[in-house]
Structure formats: C-alpha cells, structure tokens
C-alpha cells in the first residue's frame, strides 16, 4: 500500500449541491472504514455542512450531519476553515463541537503531510 492518508478538500456543503457534498462525505467515510487515515477539510461553502441544527426532511433529503457524525466516530479528523466561516457569518458556536477550526494557511502543511488529496 503506497498511500495511508487522504485529505478531502470539500468545497460544497449545501443541499443545493448535495451530490457533491454527500458524495464527499460518503467517500470520506468509506475510505476511513477501509483503513486509511482521512482528514476532511471543509472550506468555502464546505463549511456549511458543519452547521448545527440542520433539518432537511421537508426537502426530502437526509441530514449530512449524520455522515459527519459517522466520520467522527470512525476516527476521521474534521477541520473547518475559519476564513470561510467568517465570510459566511457563521460563528464557532454554530458549528458542531467536534469540528476543529483552522486557518486557511494551515491547509498547506496538511496537503504536504497527506499522501493524496481529493477535491469535491
């Protein structure tokens, strides 16, 4: 096995782009379940998937928080970019407690220290 660690750069987090959002989370969870270390970086609109209190039942979709919860329980590392939160008016208290907030510049060493990265 050449690669042991994967960084998922998730740039979508809304139900209007749910295929990209859900697709990223699903892949993160599958990869984690199959033994690779996975770090999920939520950036740009990706930060929106970490928002507490989501209830998309009336639009016929499952909550992406379910996948995020699974990700954390499987041992994934969840990082949310502070600049993207601020641009969108979201405070730390409004996102799930398990998310670690990082600065955009912190992404550089993350990319370097993971064997691979995928962008969704």
């Amino acid at each position, binding site marked *: 096995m050449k690669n042991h660690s994967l960084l998922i750069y998730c740039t979508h987090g809304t139900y209007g782009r749910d295929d990209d959002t859900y697709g990223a989370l699903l892949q993160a969870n599958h990869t984690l379940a199959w033994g690779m270390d996975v770090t999920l970086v939520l950036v740009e609109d990706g930060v929106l998937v970490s928002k507490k209190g989501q209830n998309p039942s009336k639009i016929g979709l499952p909550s992406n928080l379910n996948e995020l919860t699974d990700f954390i329980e499987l041992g994934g590392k969840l990082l949310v970019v502070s600049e993207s939160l601020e641009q969108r008016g979201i405070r730390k208290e409004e996102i799930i407690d398990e998310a670690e907030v990082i600065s955009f510049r912190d992404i550089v060493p993350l*990319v*370097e220290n993971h064997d691979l990265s995928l962008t969704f």
Partner: protein
Amino acid sequence: MTKDEYEIDLGFIITKAPLESSLGEGLLTLAHHAINNGKNVGFFFISDGVWFVKKNQKNTTINKLKNLIEKGATITVSKDNLDAAGIEKTDVLEGITISEKPYQDLVALVMEKWRRVMTI
C-alpha cells in the same frame, strides 16, 4: 521518490475561470503561503483556467498571480485553451510558459515534477 527528487512541492491544476468561483483564488492564496514557507509551487491552467493568465484584468486574482510569478512559481498554461478563448500570446502575463502539448506537459508535471497536487 524522496522529497528531493521533486522539483515542485505543491502543484495546482486550475480548470475554472478566476471569477467563476473563489476556489481558484483560494489556491493562489495557498500557493502564497507555501512559497512564504520556503516551498516551490507550480500551476497548470487549462480549460477556463486560462483566463487567469490574461493581462489587464482588474481583480485580486491577477495581482496574486503576478506576485507568485515574481516569487518564482512555475506557471504553465494550455495553448489549446488559450486559442479556444481567443487569448493571444501577447496578451498572456510575462513569466508564464505556454504549453503546445498541454496533456503531455500536464502528465509529466503531475507524475514526475510535483510532489503533491491539488485540482479545481
């Protein structure tokens, strides 16, 4: 391959136009952080990404790109896509390599010259 066998620490492939989304500018910013931390970076602009290299733009991305060029980033752009966009060579920022065989050059960069790669 060891780190020293790669010329470029971080490579970025950009397929989106500069104002189409904030993702491209985000990667320019990441590149800045990387260079400021002593890393070598490279960019490959293809598809709508070629619009990043056009002179005379009035937006923040062009200044970031110029700055990266001054700091030694290796920038390549696909001639096929420049032609498609009607961008003449004389209208491309200085310090940028125009690739006459974009896919060959892209693959060579990704597989042999770039240690890590991100795409948008």
